[in-house]
């Protein structure tokens, strides 16, 4: 009989380059302090950029002007993207105003609401980074571990209906995010002018992460059924809130999800987290810490593209990982409790919460907060933030909830919404309101094709098909990413696109509307014309042949248009 300890092994092989960089970094310091002062370049060396991620930022360049600048003997238009750590996506109006101001002062004048419920500012020049980070910290937010091989921003359902449960789950998520932060003082020394305390023994620096941190990023999300807006199964570690008699009793625990993959490499695939049991709210941290240490010890540190926890779970076996988790916990998870999800999208407009407060969900196309022609979104939200006493909740679908508006204040907020023409998006088709796009070009270095800048115009054309077939109010989730890393969770979109080359996408179909089934590739490397031709034949069939209440992702499987992906391991099959 094979002992568990023999089964649990990290893959062999020389450590990847990033492992070496972390190892030499003196707990994420590297030479960041020095290179940020170098005036000869707006960039920083690659090694430091790897470390920079752990501080919530990385170097990008405006790819639109790359070739032109090369001719001008100028380096690429280097700039930093800065991502805030904002557990559950909840920000105060004061914090909103700070982000708004920093984006104007130091960024490209816009804010991006991300698919992980946080703010990103793009276009920050090196010499403005410190001021920007200090501004964020002064308003009691930070950017620690917003990227990098650590636990990232913890997501939590932006559920405005059950406001009390939302508040409770949010608190657990926030605590988790805080407690799982790296302990190194590197961030405070580099950005906040903290003096380094000499002589701390190394063993105490990172009791949980250790000096090498994790093999790869690690993501946690908490969902409150029936809403699966956070796509709980896309997380490395997902918690599904279980509510009994209006009270939060605990969470089902799901492990081993993740969206990213590499084109042409079948050892990489999106995978869904699987539910392994139930824990009480106060056990949430314990479970997370032990799961993280399993990944720390057994994750792949040799090949980064196989380093996510999902591959660790698939390699070691779900049962073995669960067993090891319970070993480390010293107690057993309870049996998972029944739950059911309805959807992973957002519900727009005003809703009344349990405490009598109102919440307005605003449709934000592509998560981009800017002043557009005839649509002064950024200005409008600034004016709202100036009078709003509740909170702002960034949703996992890149939308925004103006939350906890008292009945008295509702009138004022409504006036401002109308004055600035801000919208619940109901004049848009349901498919547009159910769309997500990652940033992609021009700033993302990984992008192979457009996403945020292109999806709206593609949807213009898809809308024509939708209208012709009477599907205007039918929600179909549509998600586009510029590369296979999956920031827009493409593999959980009923219609998904992954950039392959400029103007070319792989098209995916068959994901479940509630985020419980992955999609499968339907067509490879196709351009707009073919995309529209394909949808032009599938959507009319859906309009005519669908069963009552049948979602698009289920229909395409029943109709035999695409085979169901029953597990990430057969995503490519």
């Amino acid at each position, binding site marked *: 009989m094979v002992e568990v300890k023999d089964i649990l092994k990290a893959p062999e092989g020389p450590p990847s380059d990033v492992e070496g960089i972390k190892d030499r970094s003196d707990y994420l310091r590297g030479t960041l302090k020095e290179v940020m002062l170098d*005036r*000869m*370049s*707006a960039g920083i060396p690659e090694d430091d950029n790897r470390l920079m991620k752990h501080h919530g930022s990385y170097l990008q360049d405006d790819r639109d002007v790359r070739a032109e600048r*090369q001719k001008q*003997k*100028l*380096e690429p*238009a280097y700039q930093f993207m800065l991502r805030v750590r904002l557990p559950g996506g909840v920000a105060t109006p004061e914090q909103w105003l700070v982000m708004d101001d920093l984006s104007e002062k130091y960024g490209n004048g816009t804010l991006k609401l991300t698919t992980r419920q946080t703010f990103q500012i793009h276009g920050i*020049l090196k*010499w403005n980074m410190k001021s920007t980070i200090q501004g964020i910290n002064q308003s009691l937010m930070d950017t620690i571990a917003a990227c990098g091989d650590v636990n990232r921003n913890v997501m939590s359902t932006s559920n405005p209906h059950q406001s009390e449960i939302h508040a409770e789950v949010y608190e657990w998520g926030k605590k988790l995010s805080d407690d799982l932060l790296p302990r190194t003082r590197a961030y405070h020394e580099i950005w906040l002018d903290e003096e380094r305390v000499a002589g701390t023994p190394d063993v105490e620096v990172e009791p949980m992460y250790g000096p090498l941190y994790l093999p790869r990023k690690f993501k946690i999300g908490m969902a409150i059924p029936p809403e699966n807006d956070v796509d709980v199964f896309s997380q490395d570690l997902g918690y599904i809130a279980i509510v009994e008699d209006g009270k939060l009793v605990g969470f089902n625990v799901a492990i081993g999800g993740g969206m990213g993959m590499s084109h042409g490499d079948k050892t990489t695939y999106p995978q869904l987290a699987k539910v392994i049991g139930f824990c009480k709210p106060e056990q949430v941290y314990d479970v997370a810490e032990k799961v993280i240490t399993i990944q720390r010890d057994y994750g792949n540190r040799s090949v980064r593209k196989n380093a996510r926890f999902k591959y660790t779970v698939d390699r070691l076996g779900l049962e073995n990982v669960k067993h090891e988790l319970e070993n480390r916990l010293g107690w057993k998870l309870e049996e998972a409790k029944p739950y059911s999800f309805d959807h992973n999208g957002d519900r727009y407009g005003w809703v009344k919460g349990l405490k009598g407060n109102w919440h307005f969900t605003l449709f934000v196309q592509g998560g981009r907060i800017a002043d557009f022609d005839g649509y002064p979104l950024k200005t409008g939200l600034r004016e709202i933030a100036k009078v709003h006493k509740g909170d702002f909740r960034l949703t996992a679908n890149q939308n925004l909830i103006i939350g906890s508006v008292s009945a008295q204040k509702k009138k004022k907020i409504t006036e401002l919404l109308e004055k600035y023409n801000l919208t619940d998006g109901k004049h848009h088709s349901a498919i547009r309101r159910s769309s997500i796009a990652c940033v992609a070009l021009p700033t993302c270095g990984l992008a192979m094709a457009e996403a945020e800048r292109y999806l709206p115009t593609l949807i213009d054309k898809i809308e024509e098909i939708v209208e012709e077939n009477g599907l205007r109010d039918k929600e179909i989730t549509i998600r586009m990413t510029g590369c296979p890393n999956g920031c827009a969770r493409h593999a959980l979109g009923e219609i998904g696109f992954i950039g392959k080359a400029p103007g070319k996408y792989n098209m995916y179909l068959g994901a479940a509307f509630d985020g419980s089934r992955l999609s499968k590739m339907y067509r490879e490397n196709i351009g707009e014309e073919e995309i529209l031709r394909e949808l032009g034949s599938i959507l009319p069939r859906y309009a005519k042949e669908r069963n009552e209440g049948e979602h698009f992702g289920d229909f395409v499987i029943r109709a035999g248009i695409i085979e169901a992906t029953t597990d990430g391991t057969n995503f490519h099959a």
Partner: protein
Amino acid sequence: MNWNADEKVTVNKQGEVKTLKDALLTNFEITVLTKPLMEQAAKLSVNQELQELVKPENADKVREYIQGRDLLDLLRDFGPWTATAQEIVSILRKLPARLYSIASSVSANPDEVHLTIGAVRYDSHGRERKGVCSILTAERLQAGDTLPIFIQHNPNFKLPENPETPIIMVGPGTGVAPFRSFMQEREEAGAEGKSWMFFGDQHFVTDFLYQTEWQKWLKDGVLTKMDVAFSRDTNEKVYVQHRMLEQSKELFAWLQEGAAVYICGDEKHMAHDVHQTLITIIEKEGSMGREEAESYLASMQKEKRYQRDVY
């Protein structure tokens, strides 16, 4: 004026004939007004205002008028003109040559001459104005076109004869040009001497001239040190002389080691400020009085260790 662009005019004493358009484009200065030109022009117009303006007692007003105005303004402001195109052309100055520092080294680029030309564009009296030669090269000239050129030697702006002599180069804006040729030359020659470049301009992102070349020279050790100042990126304007002051100690040490200092670029502000800054640095780091510091710099000049190419 109802001129015909194809009208033939005589452009010089030799009697060379060109079309009016060609003559205005290539032979005559039409972007600058002078007092003598105003006086000549007055004879060709019946405009009372102009007659008044050119009277000797109004010299100040003329000076004021010609500031930022060109031939087109003159012709528009003071009609009706009694003159023919030929008569107007006859009072114009010959278009003077534009001098640019060569930004390349012959040993690095045989048969080539590189120039660093800043495109001159500004608004004046409600109209956009453009530099004659800079905009010709920036906007109208196509690859393969030719221009008349000549070389003017500058014996007072040369690399030290000894390749081991350290050099300090101060060249903000287009003043960077000769230093690019210096670096190319030192690179080709494998010169061992230390070198230190001070560069500045308005914006880091768009105005860091030859940025990638400087980065490479630094990386390869052809250039020892480089400091840059971008005046419009920060609330407080920072110029090259501020960077020099920040490093006054090291800079003075280089001078003591026999470094040669070169300044190229704007004369009125930059060269003056840098000159004063050098004196301040020598005074401070050499514990000298002002006069002593000035004579230190003067003797450097005599030894050809302080050279300027300013405009």
